[in-house]
């Protein structure tokens, strides 16, 4: 190891790491810890869901019928496919295929937009009917006590998830730019891998949301 810094290192290796392996391992551990914080962040809301579902089980069963399981199911498929494409993007970068990586990332971003568009139709339908959280709730067609709480939880959960989808679009687009710029190679692809991990988490959160909100009862 050099005593000054960076002389003999490859360009992507930051000066405070001894080896590329050490750098990659550090990034991975850091990313997993970040994902852990995300799980706990959503965990609070899952907990609120569990409490109100236990308090008002009939309301929750009645209210979930207001959600379209067809659209929710379609979105689940969209996200799962996008998880596959982002995984394939990492694989193709490991093989050094830049063009393919770029295209697979582009497909992932496209699918993320498809998800948001479907979500937009779902949201606007609910806003139209007044199936809204808390004080804003004006719908009258759901039997049971406090149906607005179901929609509070629904909008908080899907809204936060939506914010994460948008963040994913930004992150993956940034990766596309960096692939285009030629930052990555078969030796160095850590940022794409980390972005992929994040995207899998966004997918995974939805996999939990879908049955909890759309399929109960």
């Amino acid at each position: 190891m050099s005593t000054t810094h960076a002389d003999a290192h490859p360009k992507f290796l930051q000066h405070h790491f001894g080896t590329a392996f050490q750098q990659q391992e550090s990034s991975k551990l850091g990313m997993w810890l970040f994902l852990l914080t995300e799980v706990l962040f959503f965990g609070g809301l899952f907990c609120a869901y569990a409490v109100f579902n236990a308090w008002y089980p009939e309301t929750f069963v009645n209210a979930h019928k207001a959600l379209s399981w067809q659209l929710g199911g379609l979105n689940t498929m969209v996200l799962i496919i996008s998880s596959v494409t982002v995984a394939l993007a990492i694989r193709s970068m490991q093989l050094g295929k830049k063009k393919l990586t770029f295209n697979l990332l582009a497909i992932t971003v496209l699918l993320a937009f498809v998800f948001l568009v479907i979500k937009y139709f779902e949201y606007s339908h609910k806003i139209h009917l007044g199936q809204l959280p808390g004080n804003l709730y004006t719908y009258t067609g759901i039997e049971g006590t406090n149906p607005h709480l179901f929609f509070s939880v629904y909008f908080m959960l899907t809204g936060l998830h939506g914010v994460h989808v948008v963040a994913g679009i930004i992150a993956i687009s940034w990766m596309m730019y960096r692939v285009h710029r030629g930052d990555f190679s078969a030796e160095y692809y850590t940022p794409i891998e980390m972005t992929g991990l994040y995207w899998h988490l966004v997918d995974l959160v939805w996999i939990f949301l879908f049955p909890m909100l759309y399929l109960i009862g």
Partner: protein
Amino acid sequence: MSHDSTAALSYLQEPKGLKSWLLTVDHKRIGIMYLCAIMFFFFVGGALAVILRTELLRPERILMDADTYNQFFTLHGAIMIFLFIIPSIPAALGNFLLPLMVGAKDVAFPRLNLASWYVYVFGALFCLYSIISGAVDTGWTFYAPYSTTTSTSVISMTLGVFILGFSSIFTGLNFIVTIHKLRMPGMTWFKMPLMVWGLYATAIIQVLATPVLAITLVLLIMERLMGVGIFDPAMGGDPVLFQHFFWFYSHPAVYIMILPGMGIISEVISTFSHRKIFGYKAIAYSSLGIAFVSFLVWGHHMFTSGQSEIAAMIFSFLTFFVGIPSGIKVFNWVTTLYKGSISLETPMIYALMFLFLFMIGGFTGIMLGALALDVHLHDTYFVVAHFHYVMMGGTVMAFLAGIHYWWPKMFGKMYSERWAKVVAVIIFVGFNMTFFTQFILGAKGMPRRYYTYLDQYQPLHGFSSVGAWVLGAGFMIMAVYFIASFWSKRKVGDNPWGALTAEWETSSPPPQHNFLTDPVFKHGPYDYDKIAVVGDYYKQSGGTKMAEKI
């Protein structure tokens, strides 16, 4: 020999210019920037405390009306907790020391580290803005439903705290990865200094608990903005759920505050006893033990909040478990002192003060954890006194021990040891006057957070207020001698105290990349039984006596 290495330019001298500081990714500079920021907020929070105590001198109005008083105690709490004490040891001292102690050039993610400082400042601006736009009066706990209905600026304060949480998470994440991946060759887990173990346990809590506070505050803000009703009983929501969420973070958070302090105490006691730390592994494991238990005891804040009796009993029982790892630490520190060659420099004086005050804080904590007693003492000054004995008598004393201990390493300057000792005595006296009195007040039934009180409490309140002035005066003198130390001509040397951890092997202050040659692990952090080092400080001040002692 040690002065030769200072020939290289230090991190303070190079690179030059304001921009090089604002855009630095050097953990040492970021640590110093954090130190400046937290000291500013310590001053603000402290000034608020002195004003509060002055108001409480007599039951009638002295300085402010009741509403203003509510805002003042809320701001004192929120600023001290979120802006000072949580980032104090990890983000300021920890940032500076962790890479040095494990022999790394920097933390694992230097840019994230800088980002954490800016996120901290950004969050702090929201908190400061909330002060001028109708300061919060909810208490630092922001309990719903009052926090969702009060007309004060809850949103900007909680948004500020939400943002500050990210800076805390970034620091914790960085530390965990640094400790796992960047230790110098040869430094295995059980050869790490105990300060590093303390920071590691702290970082685990920061990463696991802070996100729960984040979602809680998001829900609180949404409650105020759109009335989502999750915490509103009128809409079928649950205000107790807010308390569960809040304490799920905030109880572990008090261990974010104390664990790194315990790390400092382990270093200081071993160094100034010139003796190998007793029970190294037990202290290391007990840090992890405290971190683990911290997640299981949040319900002891809610004995009177309407959780079920069985839950209260279980939480009470689990709370006693905190006493075990804490007791293990205290016994090991005391055993380290036993037959050591103790030298009473300022850091050691603060460490001994920590032992004394932390034990009072800890034992009263066990008292409050006992279900039946807590129902009586709940929301009285007894709780206030307990909290301050642990947080100020514990964490702040450890922080003061640490800042005196590492001041020569950070700045290459030595403060006036004589003044430092005088101030240590003033602070000890002032602290006990202020807060021991409050144990008695609380036991007699004085409720916390009250603007006024019955005449029978006046003598004790008055005594406590005078104590706060003594304490305030002590800190003012401390600020003066620390600032004056920058003009000190005295050379401090690389290793003023004769300690064996790695940060003392580089120059004071260290060069930009910490070590001129890549460090390799040579000896254990506490091998005082094998290696005799006489600190440069003792060499200068007639240290032959010390040399004979060891």
